[in-house]
């Protein structure tokens, strides 16, 4: 069964889920944006984001972050002893968008959920007015400031892991799909888990919080 959630809800809940599983707020914000971005293209990014966040729950950040060669970021990026986290790595690439603008390619070895990586990187395209194409397996996803283009085998979009990813600036094409602003239909069971995980970021009520938040006077006046 599916249920509709607005894009604002997708972003806000996934930010909290990411926080609940242990990411710092700044990266949790990236996870929320990426989930929303995929939902706006009606891609099942939110469900995949949930799977990924459940996988990394409570694990050490250092395991998943990319090790960037000290001599050059042109070298292949890889994680210490795990697959690369698409949020941590995607944010690190988005931070280096100007490096891609200069014609360089960033290549990754062994990354989890490459579509989540693309969505996190894709956030940077509009502010840098550029197109970034992320390629893995037999599929290419180009991120534009205002849309996406998918080429190749769409089945590979949903891979939970891929051995090689490349990211570079591309030119001379137009997006084939623009984002929607309408609500996204998400699997109800998945949303139930999202809701439960997000709930972990809320503080149980105390007598003090109840007493302090309100008017303290009658409202029947």
């Amino acid at each position, binding site marked *: 069964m599916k249920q*509709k959630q*607005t*894009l*604002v*809800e997708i972003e806000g809940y996934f930010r909290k889920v990411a926080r609940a599983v242990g*990411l*710092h*707020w*700044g*990266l949790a*914000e990236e996870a929320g*944006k990426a989930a929303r971005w995929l939902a706006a293209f009606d891609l099942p990014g939110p469900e995949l984001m949930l799977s990924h966040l459940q996988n990394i729950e409570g694990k050490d*950040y250092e395991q998943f*972050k*990319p090790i*960037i060669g000290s001599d050059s970021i042109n070298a292949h990026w890889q994680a210490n002893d795990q697959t690369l986290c698409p949020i*941590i790595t995607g*944010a*690190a690439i*988005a*931070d*280096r*968008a*100007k*490096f891609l603008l200069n014609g360089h390619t960033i290549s990754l070895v062994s990354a989890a959920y490459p579509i989540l990586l693309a969505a996190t990187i894709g*956030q*940077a395209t*509009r*502010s*840098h007015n550029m197109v970034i194409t992320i390629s893995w397996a037999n599929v290419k996803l180009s991120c534009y400031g205002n849309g996406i283009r998918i080429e190749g085998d769409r089945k590979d979009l949903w891979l939970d892991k891929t051995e090689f990813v490349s990211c570079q600036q591309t030119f001379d094409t137009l997006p084939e799909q623009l984002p929607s*602003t*309408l*609500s996204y239909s998400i699997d109800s069971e998945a949303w139930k888990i999202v809701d439960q995980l997000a*709930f972990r*970021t*809320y*503080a*149980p*009520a*105390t007598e*003090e*919080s*109840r007493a*302090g*938040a*309100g*008017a*303290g*006077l009658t*409202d*029947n*006046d």
Partner: protein
Amino acid sequence: MNCTDQNPVPEAANFRRPAEVVMRLARMGSFHQTRLSFMRTLLRRLKNEQWTFDKPVWEVDGDGFGRAVYSVIGPVRTYSLVAFSHYLPDEMRSDRVIATAWDATFTLFDGVPTTADLDRLEKNVPKQEAGRISDSEISLSRANRSVRLWNHVIEKLSIGEQPDREQLESVGYLVRTTAVYGSGKFGAADRLTICDRPELSGPFQAELLSVWLTRAFAIDLVEHIAQSVGGDKAAVIAPDLRKRIGVGNSTGLGMAPFLFNHPALINNWMMAREEAIARVRAVNKASAAEVTEFVTSFERAKFNFSNWNTVHKIQLEKLASLGDDLEKMSVYISTENLNFDYPWDRFYQWAEQHLSLEGQEQLVSLILEPYGELVDDLTGCMDADEHLSFIIDGSMTVAETLNILDLQCQWALSIDFDQPESQARFWYTSAEKLEPRVGERFNEPGEEYESPYGIGFYISQLNKTLLGWTETHSDQKPIADFLLAHPEHRHTLRRVQNLKNRPYAEVQDNVIASDMLPIDLLRCKLSFFGATKFDPRSDRWVRICMYQDCPHPDELLARKIPVLA
């Protein structure tokens, strides 16, 4: 318009108040509505574009329960307030967000709802957060009656008399809204759905349209009930009294984090307001007509002050100061002062020396009044493309980042966070109602759930870590390298970078300090809405009045001409 590149009054830059003066809680908590406030922007547009008004549905019984639809029809689109009125026992009437039932509930529908839409909405809107609306709805809200005034007005009207003016003015509204949700909350349309529509692109235009129509509904409802009770002898509210009826609002902490969560937007609100003030201060000579208009506005402010009621100690003290300030301003105006060169700048500089913050901020609101042509275009600069402020420029060097911290964050770096009072509070979201709360860090459990709003503290931590990092790394390294090593500072770094082009983006006070007053945050935001009569009920809860003395839909807009069958 492009708000930075096409500034028609470049000389105003010399008069603009810097962020370190403006973005202080004590000053923000003294803001008054201005002609740039969102309610006034909305009504100006509806009038200028000659929107029309209609009430296509009125299905309300003699006790005042049922449903109604109020539509405003613009050049391109129609929006409709769908209103449901319910029986509510007194013991269930609460303005708190934890309430589960209300006297009336509303949604703003995108277009004109069909009967099927109304039936669907009737199953959901009365439940508010527990229901679900759709992409066809733009806002969700509720209101409770002001019991003291509601019953009095019905009683009087039903016997053919007018309500007591003093009683009506002392309350100022028939209903208080207790939450107005928009932007994708509870299933409503996403902000991006409406942000390209000129009439809704400005901040909170949809929500404030719904509140304006709520005011009309409340007045129709009391007159309808009075008519049902009194029959032929019942009266309607006299026009001069009717205008004095606004809409109340009761707001707690839920509103405060908005100021932390939308730094780019807040910058643009503040920037527009400060630019407007600076443009007027840059005016070389005030014409006789401009002075007259200022004096008229000043008299209105004095009148507003005279029926601004509160029982809260903090606001009582502020009102006492404002009363003194208004007296001093009266004396200032009665001399030749406004005939000098740069009269408004002189007036403002005098105010800085002689008036409290309440008085200073009252003055800056008033000097804008005669200058609509000079400042109203700035309302077009008060929205924000928040996506652009989200992206981190990782190529910025560590040295540049430290420079921003040094130049723009001294307010945070100068706070001694080792003192318990500097960290006494923490913001969190309550599991009880998913609403923001403020806790006492050293006396209450829950610190581990802290929301990242204490930006001053985080800035000081970032600064400390960055300085440490430069002991082993070149400060010419890109900040992206630092962020990869220190993901805990990513949230803060995003905000600090944002300050480079958006100097008014952050509240420059410690919002986790023991003496922080959340009502200052609430008042700042509500003043931008256009609220008046700020009446704190505690340090974190405030009642206000909206749209008092503003025209009603049937006064501002022509009635839609019915299409003949």
